[in-house]
Each structure stands twice: as structure tokens, then as C-alpha cells.
């Protein structure tokens, strides 16, 4: 196993609170919500496992050394949060197959199955949205999710998928921008002034020698 302190990126002399903080930050970063329906979810899951066992290992080592004994306040973000499409559904068997194909990552098969269905009900739209999302076709994904939610407003699964579309996700410390729409104007104009020189290059024209 890798050095648990290295995994959490803290020194061996770090206080318990520092270790906990580092762990929490990493756990937030690799949280399943940030990799929901992401083709790289399995890699994030591995990271999460590594972080969890590093944190556990450090706690174990420290509680062994400590005189007073550290409280076992093991703080865990479980990675059980990944949706397993196959198990949550009990409806028609074709839809079931589509869900299984999606969870296997076999997007082409899932799409083929869906396209053969004429009844475009709420679930069909939801699954179509999921396929688009997996591909990175975010605009259409959102539209399918919206249709699914309109057709079946009470469905929690569809509502969750739609709300994930606008979810801000993880931000590192010191970063406060939530998105394109949330960006103070003065900030951006300053950025543009900085980049004017390189932008003029992109149009194929060299900027004048700056003699600098």
C-alpha cells in the first residue's frame, strides 16, 4: 500500500484536524456526485477507495500511539452512491436491458435497443437522456431529462438527473466561480485585455514586436 500520508498529501506531523481536512477535501473531490454517469467514474471510485483506506490507516496508526486514545470518528463518504441501473428497476424487460447496457458502458447497444421502441414514455426519455449524457451530448441530455420530468413529475430518479445538470460540483479552495453565468463583469473584461495580444495571433496576424 502507498504511504497513506502521501495519498492524503499531508506531512506525517500534521495534526489530526489537518489530516481530517485533507481527507474531507479529497473525498469531496472524488465524490460520486461529481462523477455521476461519467465515463471515468470507475477511476474516481478507485481514488476514493485509496483515500478511504489511507485515512483509516492513519487513524489506526495514531490511535495505537496515542495515550489518550483518539475517538474513532471515522468519517466516511461511501462510494455506494453509484447508481446501478440494473437493480433499481422492475419494469419491462427491454428497459431493463437498456439499463444494464448503460451500466456496463455499452452505449451503442443501449441506444440500439431504445431506438427500436415506439412508445416514447417518460422512462424512454430518461434513458435516452442518460445515453446522451454519457456521450457528452449535454444539450440533448437536458432536453430529454426535461421531457421525462414533464411526463412523470413525481419520479425522483428523473428529477435527480435533471437537477444534476445544473449542479455546481466540486470547487478547489480559493475558487468561487460557479459557472459561466456567474462571473463578475469586471473580472472578465480584465481577462480579455490581457489576452488581446494572443487573440490577434490566433487570427493569423502576428502582434507587433513588443520590444520587451
Amino acid at each position, binding site marked *: 500500500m502507498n504511504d497513506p500520508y502521501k495519498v492524503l498529501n499531508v506531512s506525517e506531523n500534521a495534526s489530526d484536524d489537518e489530516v481530517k481536512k485533507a481527507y474531507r477535501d479529497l473525498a469531496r473531490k472524488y465524490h460520486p456526485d461529481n462523477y455521476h454517469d461519467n465515463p*471515468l467514474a470507475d*477511476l*474516481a471510485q478507485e481514488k476514493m477507495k485509496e483515500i478511504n483506506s489511507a485515512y483509516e490507516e492513519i487513524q489506526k496508526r495514531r490511535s495505537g500511539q496515542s495515550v489518550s486514545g483518539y475517538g474513532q470518528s471515522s468519517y466516511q463518504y461511501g462510494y455506494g452512491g453509484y447508481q446501478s441501473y440494473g437493480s433499481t428497476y422492475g419494469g419491462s424487460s427491454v428497459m431493463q436491458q437498456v439499463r444494464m447496457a448503460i451500466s456496463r458502458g455499452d452505449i451503442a447497444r443501449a441506444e440500439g435497443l431504445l431506438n427500436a421502441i415506439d412508445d416514447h414514455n417518460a422512462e424512454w426519455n430518461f434513458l435516452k437522456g442518460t445515453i446522451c449524457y454519457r456521450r457528452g451530448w449535454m444539450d440533448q441530455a*437536458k432536453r430529454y431529462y426535461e421531457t421525462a420530468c414533464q411526463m412523470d413529475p413525481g419520479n425522483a430518479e428523473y428529477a435527480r438527473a435533471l437537477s444534476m445538470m445544473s449542479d455546481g460540483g466540486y470547487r478547489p479552495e480559493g475558487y468561487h466561480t460557479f*459557472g459561466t453565468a456567474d462571473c463578475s463583469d469586471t473580472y472578465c473584461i480584465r481577462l480579455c485585455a*490581457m*489576452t488581446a495580444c494572443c487573440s490577434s495571433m490566433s487570427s493569423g496576424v502576428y*502582434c507587433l514586436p513588443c520590444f520587451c
Partner: protein
Amino acid sequence: MFGYVLPSREKLTEEERAGFQSMYCGLCHTLREKYGFAASLILNYDLTYLAVLLSDGEEEQTACRRCVAHPCKGRCAAKRTAALEKAAACSVILAYWQIMDGIHDSRGWKRLKYRAAERVLRGAYRKAAEDRPTFDEATRLQLTKLDELEKNGCTTLDEPADAFAELLAGVAAELDDPVRQRVYREMLYHMGRWIYLVDAADDLEKDYKSGSFNPLIPRYGLTEGKLTDEAKQDFAMTLDRSVRSMAAAFELWDFGCWAALLRSTFYEGLYQVGHAVLAGEFRRAKRSKNKEGNI
């Protein structure tokens, strides 16, 4: 089409900015040495990101070099590496096919300009295509697809963006490590998608006036050359999803000395550029030809 991917300046230290600048200069020198002076004219920051991503994340060796743009004092430039050479070849191929696309799509005076550019870059392109035949083939394929979609007047944003996204994602095939390949594919796919969409938004007014294809017009049923507030909000969300996918991929690989640069790009820089484009500020800044030079 290029020049949109940028870091957030406030989040970088002097050293980190200098590192990026030296990569920019290094790519410029590599382009010139390998493919001739004309090739160095295509340089921009998006292509520098390609060089950054292809490098192995270790501190680059630099040397102070003079060039046409900085003839007196010169600038620190990264030394030529295999990564820079790869990035240079991919850059030339991308630029060339975009020019060909321009010839195809435009008429009159503009077309002449593209034709002139094609002539200038032709030699460089032939060499680059020889160096990276697979990437050349993939690029040509995706741009043909894009062209067909545009001709058939497709009404979605995702399909044309996909063609361009796949094109950048093709760069990942140049890597060896399978995990790295997966992470890069996802990141470059969304970078390509984001660039295509931001570029479409940036060109919207111009395209509307000239009657050129722009995916935003059919998607939002626009009857004038700008987005309504509602459409803007919807479009910003689509951009954000791609930025978040880039950030999520970024966290799954160790980018070494480039981590700070990429972090500031994926968690802030791209949002700022997108915002400036949607506010109509990006082009204005371009036109004002401010000569501050450094990022």
C-alpha cells in the same frame, strides 16, 4: 476558431505564468524549426495547451531565445521535446484543415484570403501529415462529417460539436498509458466541444448577417443575431457541463508542474471566457488589439 482556452490570471503565480509563456515560445520555435516560418503564424494559446497536456509534467528546460516578435531581449522558451514536436504536428494539421474548411464555406474576398493562407501553409501541412498520418486521417474524417452536418442544416448543438470534439479527442491516441488515454480523451473531447460552442456563440452576429451556418440559430430558433436571455442561460449551462467534465477528468491524472495552470483554467478561466463571449466582450477585446502581450 482557436484562442479561447485560457487560465485565470489571478490564480497563477509569476512562475507559473512564466512556465506557460515558455511553453508558448517553445511551441513557436518548434513550429518554425520543423515546419517553416509560416507554420509559426498559426500559434495560439489553445495549441499551447495541447503541448502542455502532451508533455510529461516535469519542469521544462528553458533557454532564452530571440524571435521576430521579441527581437531585443528575447524570451524564455521551452526546449524542443517529443511532446512539443507532437503538439506542433497536430497544430499544423488542425490549422490546415480549418483553412480548407474556410475555403469550402466562404465566397469572394474572404475565400481568396483562405486560399492564400492554404498556399502558405501547404508545405508545412504535407510534412506534418507525413509525421502524424493517423491524426491527419482522423481530422479529415471529422471535418468532412462536420461539413455534411452543416450542409444538411442540423438543428442540434451536440452533433456538430461532437465532430469537433472527436477531432481533439483524437490527440489522446498519441499517448501510451491506457488510463492516461482515457482521462485525456474525456478532457479533450469536452475541450473540443466547448471550443466549438464558444466559437459559435462568438461568431453568432457575424454568421447571422452573412447567412452562414451557425448551430445556435436553428437550436434556439433565433430571429436576430443574438441570443435571448433565456437562451443565454440555457447555453451557459451546456458550456458549464463540459467545463465540469474537463475538471472531473483533470482530477484523475497527475499533471505535475502544470496542475496549477490547468486548475485555474478548468475551475475559472473557461467560465470567464464563456462569460465574456456571451456578454459580447471577447471580440471587442480582440479588435482593440491591446498589446499587453503577456498572459
